[in-house]
């Protein structure tokens, strides 16, 4: 990556966020919007920082729900993708079911889940996993279905058994697709956690904090909590992008990183 490109990659997003906040400020100030309808951006941010001691544990809970659910969803999704690819019968039996799971409005799913799993972290984890697994399954399936047939033939000629072909060729070949599913899942994950929190929580939660802020006409609190939820989503997305960057160096680099090269090359002439 050139230096110019790097600067653009860092300052581009910052600039767009600044412009967005500026636009928000302008609308609130020039539109004479009352503070109980919509706050100025800075007031929303301050609503978070000045209540941080209350919000921190709630945020931590939401993060935990998001991450646990995401991991369960990602592993389950990838597993299902492989099963569907390897067992063609499953594709006919399971695929309609998978579509069905996504057709159920998640908001309708939350209350019965709470009924079954209680008020703790479990129903939220299930909801997040429920949302996350589908794009992962679809992308893994897509990735596996598009592995070069000639490459698989070549591997057969080389005498590789199906297990080795899967591990050495199919799995890495599907990894770029896998990450596109993981990225979509990452943007949705927090939403799932928040829906779960709204359905029922013991004690407090970010979603309920927001609801009671809304009840107190504390728009700064409502917008601030929204910013906080968004930040969790964005940070998680960026972490997934970072993982992709590390896991798929061939997409951006021309040479392997030093630590991936294994033993130092011993050059011999023969």
């Amino acid at each position, binding site marked *: 990556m050139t230096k110019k490109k790097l600067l653009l990659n860092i300052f581009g997003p910052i600039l767009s966020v600044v412009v967005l906040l500026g636009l928000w400020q302008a609308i609130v100030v020039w539109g004479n919007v*009352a*503070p*109980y*309808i919509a706050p100025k951006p800075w007031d929303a941010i301050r609503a978070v920082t000045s209540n941080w001691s209350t919000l921190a544990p709630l945020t931590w809970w939401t993060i935990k729900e998001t991450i646990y659910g995401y991991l369960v969803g990602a592993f389950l999704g990838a597993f299902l993708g492989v099963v569907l690819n390897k067992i063609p019968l499953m594709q006919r039996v399971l695929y309609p079911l998978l579509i069905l799971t996504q057709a159920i*409005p998640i*908001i*309708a799913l*939350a*209350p019965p889940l*709470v*009924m079954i799993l*209680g*008020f703790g972290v479990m129903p939220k984890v299930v909801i997040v996993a429920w949302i996350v697994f589908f794009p992962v399954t679809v992308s893994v399936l897509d990735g596996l279905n598009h592995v070069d047939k000639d490459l698989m033939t070549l591997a057969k000629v080389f005498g590789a058994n199906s297990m080795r072909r899967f591990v050495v060729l199919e799995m890495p070949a599907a990894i770029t697709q896998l990450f596109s599913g993981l990225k979509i899942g990452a943007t949705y994950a927090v939403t799932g956690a928040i829906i779960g929190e*709204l*359905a*029922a*929580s*013991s*004690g*407090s*939660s970010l979603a*309920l904090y927001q*609801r*009671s802020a*809304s*009840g*107190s*006409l*504390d728009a700064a609190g409502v917008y601030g909590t929204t910013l906080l939820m968004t930040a969790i989503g964005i940070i998680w997305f960026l972490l997934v992008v970072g993982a992709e960057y590390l896991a798929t160096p061939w997409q951006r680099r021309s040479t392997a990183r030093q630590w991936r090269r294994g033993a130092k090359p011993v050059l011999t002439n023969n």
Partner: protein
Amino acid sequence: MKRNFLSISVAGAVMALSSITVLSASTLASASTLTAVKFVYDFPGPDMEIIPVVVAEKEGFFKANGLNVSVEFPPSTSSTTQLLTTGSGDIGFITTSDMAVAVEAKAPVISVANYSMTNNWGLFAKPGSTLTLAGLKGKKIFSWGDTWTNAMIPFVLKKAHLKASDITIVTGSNDTPLLMKGTIDFTTSTTNYAIPGITEATKSAPVGIVGAAAGVPNVPVWVYAVTHNYANQHGKNVRGFLKAIKAATIWASQHKAKAVADFMAAYPKSGYSKFYSTKGWALTVPLLTNAAGKYFVQTNKQWTTLATALKSVNLIKSVPAPSTYYTNKFLP
């Protein structure tokens, strides 16, 4: 205080649409000569407390007062005052605690009439269980997470000599199934919602501690409110609205079955059974008049009591003059 928060917010959109069709059908002919008024309910979906508005429409009381009233449902509880200030609604149905919080936030709204006259809020449990203030320690208590419940719970704790950490508050969208399953010990609600709901599920009446027995201030729970602007510029509409509502309320108190039928016809998909709405409305009617048998009348005392109570539990910071909250000048 009302059930199915989440599912109703989805249903709310459907309701809002169907309500427009229902109400506009009867008013189409003379719509041009009538004044349009947007009424905003306190909850994302309709329930039996909206019966006065439904009856005023169905039985022609609005029309007789020159009004064409459309009903809107807010996207969430406690957002009705915001809809009024943005002009999305003209006349709102809110809790008195919503009103106090709005004034605290300097939202220019004012209460124009009481809906109910007494505090019928309290704690409820499954039929046959023991419910005493002394026995609350260590129990799981359901809350709707709304401002009213947040305001009331500290009073219960005070009366029971408990700290907030002595109980577990579980917040959710539907209490009855949790109560049936035993995942919560008690729920919080008002008599006109809790009794029909639990009775419907268990075939017998719940046990409850209500009002003064629960330690809560005796103040009205619901009021009709408008913005200062609307009050100043459209006082005639407010007066006409309350006149129609009063006539409809009296009519609905005398013809309870027909009133419930009107509600069921206007909102066939409200999610509430005829049993629930009939029982709920029967329990609501006695709440609507004061000791002198009068509708709507607000007093300095009720608002001072409420504001003092809310300040004592830190929901508001100061107690303003009661006239900041209300006016009786539009009463019919």
